[in-house]
């Protein structure tokens, strides 16, 4: 943190490219290298978490226990959730921020390059620790990614301590990443790049970063309390000592609900960059979008207990959280209209990034609809903790967050590598993913409504048909991601040369740089009109 930009990025390094060998990656303070590391790490975690998901779906293909035992099944659902949330989605967004934010605001690099290096390199250790619990006696954490006490405290396997430390490390990494993004955006904008001209992706990340700083410490607090309950005899969540297991849920969801927005706001930003590009029109209602995102951040702290309608809240509490949730849902939901209005009377083309963005709009909206249904407290009594909820949040996170990350990758990959992507392969990947996602998650609405609880390794016969369908879809979706891996590698290794602007409708500072983008983005600040 002592580092000033002058020492790192100023004239002394002006002409230097990357160092060679492994040292380049270990000691790099370059935002593009670190962005690349984050993205590869996230892809690796995505494939790991995905493999676990496939194991889960394989077990659920038929009624009865075939492949795994219930203990291991619970470990898989827990690790799948944790890895996808903290290992795949969040690092991918940080990676994108690293690559894009300096280029978009006309900065030479991130504001705090050494801290940037740190914040990445914590992650592999955190996840190595987390994944190593699978091989420990008593097994990995088996209490779900929401780790409700007392299942995660008094009744947890011994590996819970490692899980807690892993969460602490991830939290520190996220906080450092967020600080870096904020410092970069606030302090390193090129002259003339006023706040009001920031691309929406930058805006969404700025707000996300503040959210991270507000809630990651709360998560750290809640796991610290768990640690103290387990090892130091305190009773935060232990009813025997006057503690309260429901308190755990309140504190967890105080973190957890804003966390949902942390995973979706950068996606809003990405989609708001891509759709205008391929509609060859400016984003409809940019101002509203910025204001709405900012207020979502504040209001997201007021609705947490809608995850807890069945814990026995008094009537007034249920009503409060139902009303607040419904009121807040509207300004969030109608942002979809802005994207549609951006497309309306545009001049549309459908390259791969646009296809993913369109799928995002449609499928995220469907996830929003089921979210609206879940907000109705009495109806939530029937939906809560069933597959309907699983379908809901997977619609928001897979074709929401994950599709936006893929759209972003296809969109900016030519800028990063200097090569055009293979459109044909990209489209195949898109259609397989799109079909696979829907075959996997749409039937989950049905089994949920029919009465299938979530997180069960085996189920009654009436749920069998849709579960088989979902499992088939999961394998289609899962294996089609290998195409993504192939596409990315192929694009790095070769392909048609990309022009500087890459896409006909592209606007923004990053497209004024050559493709591939030079190692140091803007050594001379650009002039922003």
């Amino acid at each position, binding site marked *: 943190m002592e580092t000033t930009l002058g020492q790192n990025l100023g004239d002394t390094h002006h002409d230097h490219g990357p160092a060679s060998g492994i040292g380049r990656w270990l000691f790099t303070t370059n935002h593009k290298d670190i962005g690349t590391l984050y993205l590869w790490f996230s892809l690796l975690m995505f494939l790991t978490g995905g493999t676990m998901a496939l194991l889960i779906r394989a077990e659920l293909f038929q009624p009865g226990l075939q492949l795994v035992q219930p203990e291991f099944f619970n470990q898989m659902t827990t690790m799948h959730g944790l890895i996808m949330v903290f290992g795949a989605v969040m690092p991918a967004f940080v990676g994108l921020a690293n690559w894009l934010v300096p280029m978009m605001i006309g900065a030479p690099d991130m504001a705090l390059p050494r801290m940037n290096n740190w914040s990445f390199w914590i992650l592999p250790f955190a996840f190595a620790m987390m994944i190593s619990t699978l091989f420990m006696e008593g097994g990995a954490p088996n209490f779900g990614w929401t780790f409700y006490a007392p299942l995660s405290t008094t009744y947890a396997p011994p590996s819970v301590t490692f899980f807690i430390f892993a969460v602490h490390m991830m939290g520190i990494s996220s906080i450092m990443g967020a600080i870096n993004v904020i410092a970069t955006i606030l302090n390193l904008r090129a002259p003339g790049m*006023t*706040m*009001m001209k920031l691309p929406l992706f930058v805006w969404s990340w700025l707000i996300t970063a503040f959210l991270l700083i507000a809630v990651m410490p709360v998560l750290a607090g809640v796991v610290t309390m768990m640690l103290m309950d387990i090892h130091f005899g305190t009773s935060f969540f232990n009813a025997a000592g006057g503690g309260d297991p429901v308190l755990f849920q309140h504190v967890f969801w105080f973190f957890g609900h804003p966390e949902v927005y942390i995973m979706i706001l950068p996606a809003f930003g990405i989609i708001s960059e891509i759709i205008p590009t391929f509609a060859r029109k400016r984003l409809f*209602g*940019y*101002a*509203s979008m*910025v*204001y*709405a995102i*900012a*207020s979502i951040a*504040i*209001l997201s*702290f*007021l609705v947490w207990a809608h995850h807890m309608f069945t814990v026995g809240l008094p*009537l*007034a509490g249920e*009503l*409060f959280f139902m*009303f*607040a949730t419904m*009121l807040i849902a*509207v*300004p*969030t939901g*109608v*942002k979809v209209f802005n994207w549609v209005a951006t497309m309306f009377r545009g001049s549309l083309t459908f390259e791969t990034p646009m296809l993913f963005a369109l799928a995002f709009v449609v499928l995220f909206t469907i996830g929003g609809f089921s979210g609206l249904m879940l907000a109705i407290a009495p109806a939530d009594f029937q939906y809560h903790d069933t597959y309907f909820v699983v379908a809901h949040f997977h619609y928001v996170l897979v074709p929401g967050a994950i599709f936006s990350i893929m759209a972003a990758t296809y969109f900016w990959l030519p800028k990063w590598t200097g090569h055009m992507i293979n459109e044909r392969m990209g489209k195949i990947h898109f259609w397989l993913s799109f079909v696979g996602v829907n075959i996997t998650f749409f039937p989950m609405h049905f089994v949920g409504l029919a009465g299938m609880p979530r997180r069960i390794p085996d189920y009654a016969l009436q749920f069998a048909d849709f579960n088989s369908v979902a499992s088939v879809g999961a394998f289609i979706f899962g294996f089609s991601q290998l195409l993504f891996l192939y596409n990315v590698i192929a694009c790095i290794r070769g392909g048609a040369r990309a022009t500087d602007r890459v896409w006909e409708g592209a606007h923004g500072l990053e497209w004024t740089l050559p493709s591939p983008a030079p190692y140091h983005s803007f050594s001379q600040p650009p002039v922003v009109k």
Partner: protein
Amino acid sequence: MAEDPQKGGFLKTLQSVLAAMFGVQSEHRRLEDFSSHKPWRFILMGLAVAVVFVVLVMLLVRWALSLGAV
């Protein structure tokens, strides 16, 4: 940008924050807002409006309960 950055007082800030909560703001007003160099004004107002929002929803709940005769 032509406007005086110090122009607009409490009411204008309130209006902007309410517009944010509602999720709709015009380009013109946005330019005005961002010509102000006092983000704290907006942040504090945002928090205050959030508190008012909570109180209003609580009153709504009271009212609903009184109607439901519980």
